[in-house]
């Protein structure tokens, strides 16, 4: 093949949040502010946006099961089609924003970026941003799994409408969010007001940036049995990882428990390898690559994070330890 400059991958930000949390307000803000950037916005309710912009695309959330025998492998068919279409435009974008409906499971959107080769070639999933309604979040948790899963998937959380609750209640909501997902960065906001560089082009899914992005990555995670609720678990070790054993364990684990494991990430010190091995997963899908090299004399440790439902901490710990040399 003739050499050619690889087309730059456009960063995609997925915007989730329960009904009424403030997603549309945030989108209107992004579209109307003078930031000198050009975004394509994929929305599910055309009429709700106050700004008329020809880069706003109306999408019906078309969740497709992949016909490959993997029960939780679902993708957003409309997104595949729309991204392919957007790439036919002459004008290029600084980013693409995908708004999901208030009751949407973020899984299929995220998995689209792991599954479809054309989408992977042209775009990269940058971050999942979840807007949380500070006043109604705890109540929404009782309504079904959606509010909880939207927080579980998040890389960045806008804890919005903070002016409508007391500081005590806010602390309770924040504690609840952290118990579900201790690795997302939380920004307190009112009327979805936030600096755009806090939510856009974060590189949260960039495998090479997992380390910088997770300030408290090293902390040990779990404390008690969370039962059916979504929780985060993390494990770490200073012993080198056996790559074959790890592949086998992780492969089987995601195959078996992929429906309950919403997000997984890790940085591994593979026995004898000069570079970090980094991975990032959504349900059963996983992407892995070699990250930055270990420095001379640097302590080589491995870290593993799971965010999911009904996670068996003991079992996961044992599984991970069996992969160590």
């Amino acid at each position, binding site marked *: 093949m003739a050499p050619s400059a690889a087309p730059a991958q456009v960063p995609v930000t997925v915007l989730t949040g329960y009904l009424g949390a403030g997603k549309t307000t945030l989108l209107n803000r992004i579209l109307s502010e003078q930031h000198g950037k050009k975004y394509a916005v994929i929305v599910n309710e055309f009429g709700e946006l106050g700004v008329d912009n020809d880069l706003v695309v109306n999408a019906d959330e078309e969740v497709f099961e*992949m016909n490959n025998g993997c029960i939780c492998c679902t993708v957003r*068919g409309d997104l595949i089609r729309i991204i392919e279409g957007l790439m036919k435009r002459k004008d290029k974008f600084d980013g693409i924003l995908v708004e999901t409906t208030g009751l949407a499971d973020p899984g299929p959107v995220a998995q689209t970026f792991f599954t479809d080769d054309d989408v992977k070639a042209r775009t990269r999933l940058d971050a999942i941003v979840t807007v949380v309604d500070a006043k109604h979040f705890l109540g929404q948790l009782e309504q079904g799994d959606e509010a909880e899963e939207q927080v579980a998937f998040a890389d960045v959380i806008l804890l919005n409408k903070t002016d409508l609750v007391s500081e005590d209640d806010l602390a309770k909501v924040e504690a609840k969010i952290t118990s579900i997902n201790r690795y997302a960065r939380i920004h307190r906001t009112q009327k979805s007001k936030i600096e755009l560089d806090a939510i856009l082009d974060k590189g949260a899914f960039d495998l090479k940036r997992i380390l910088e992005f997770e300030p408290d990555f090293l902390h040990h995670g779990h404390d008690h049995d969370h039962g059916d609720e979504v929780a985060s678990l993390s494990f770490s070790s200073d012993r080198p990882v056996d790559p074959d054993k790890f592949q086998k364990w992780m492969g089987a684990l995601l195959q078996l428990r992929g429906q309950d494991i919403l997000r997984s990430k890790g940085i591994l010190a593979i026995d004898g390898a000069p570079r970090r091995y980094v991975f990032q997963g959504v349900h059963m899908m996983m992407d892995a690559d070699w990250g930055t090299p270990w420095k001379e004399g640097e302590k080589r440790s491995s870290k593993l994070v799971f965010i999911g439902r009904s996670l068996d901490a003991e079992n996961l710990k044992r599984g991970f330890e069996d992969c160590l040399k």
Partner: protein
Amino acid sequence: MSKIDLGNPEWRSRLPSSRAVAADAPAAACAFSRDGKTVAFALGDGRVRLLPADVTEVAGAAPESAHKGAVLSLIADPMGDGFLSGGDDGRLLRIAPDGGTTEIVNQKGKWIDKLAAHRSNGTFAASVGKMAVVVDKAGEVREFGPHPSTVAAIDFSKDGSRIAAAHYGGITVWSIGQVTLPPRKLGWQGSHVALKWSTDGKFIATGTQENDIHVWRVAQSSDMRMQGYPAKVKSLSWSADARWLYTSAQPVFTAWPFAGKGPEGKPPLQFGDEGAGLITVVAAHPAAEFVVGGYDSGELQLGDIKTRRSAVLKMADGAAVSCLAWSPDGFALAAGNDNGDLLVIDLRR
């Protein structure tokens, strides 16, 4: 008829005359007009670029923008010597040979990304969201659907009495005559992203999200599945005699044999030169045994399935071929790529 002779060293040694135009916007589709005199390219900046098919003729000025966003689909107008174009601005336009436009559909917020026409009855069809919109020669607009998902591809039966639409979960066949009949659903799990009805009307082939091909025998409703492609098969083309189904997503020409009992249990016929990448677009000659393939590297190859010979028509340049079209007489080709390089090739030597 064949002045195209891949076995003739003299034919091979001479470069075809061609016209190259840099349009500076990705080409989504191209087509020759019915009279073969004009070539049109659908561009990512909203323009439909018209060029004389005769490569020695001076090209006129580029017409004004036709659509507001990107032009996503383009076919020859079955009712004249112009074209039909669909865009991400939700508009379907009729374009006269002089570039003048008439709006036929305007549905803001929807994309018109697939168009198909019947070769002789003047009817055409467009995908508009979950609906298939059919416009007959009298200009009457009728909608078919909704389908289970956005219509991903659409095509006419040989006799023009039916259309087939590809979507999630299979395809739907509609009778488009004046008598409304219930649609026929031919199911196969997963999302179907490309569709071509065979030139003899007996088969409907689709490309799927899972890199497979699915083919239904229309009369029997029996179906078959071809696996093993490394990428989605987005381009399908039936040979004029319906003996072969050509597919993209392979490093060489790949043709499934549909003569006799069909392709069950047989491997596809493969020929041509490897090493140019993967074929992104494939187009069978309108009458003879030739086929043209465009690669993700930009290379163009012409193949002859009878002799299994091939010749390079254009060298790789790094920009994936995005569209191909044969002239009605089969002596000229149009090709476009992701960079907006537009090419018209005259194969008469």
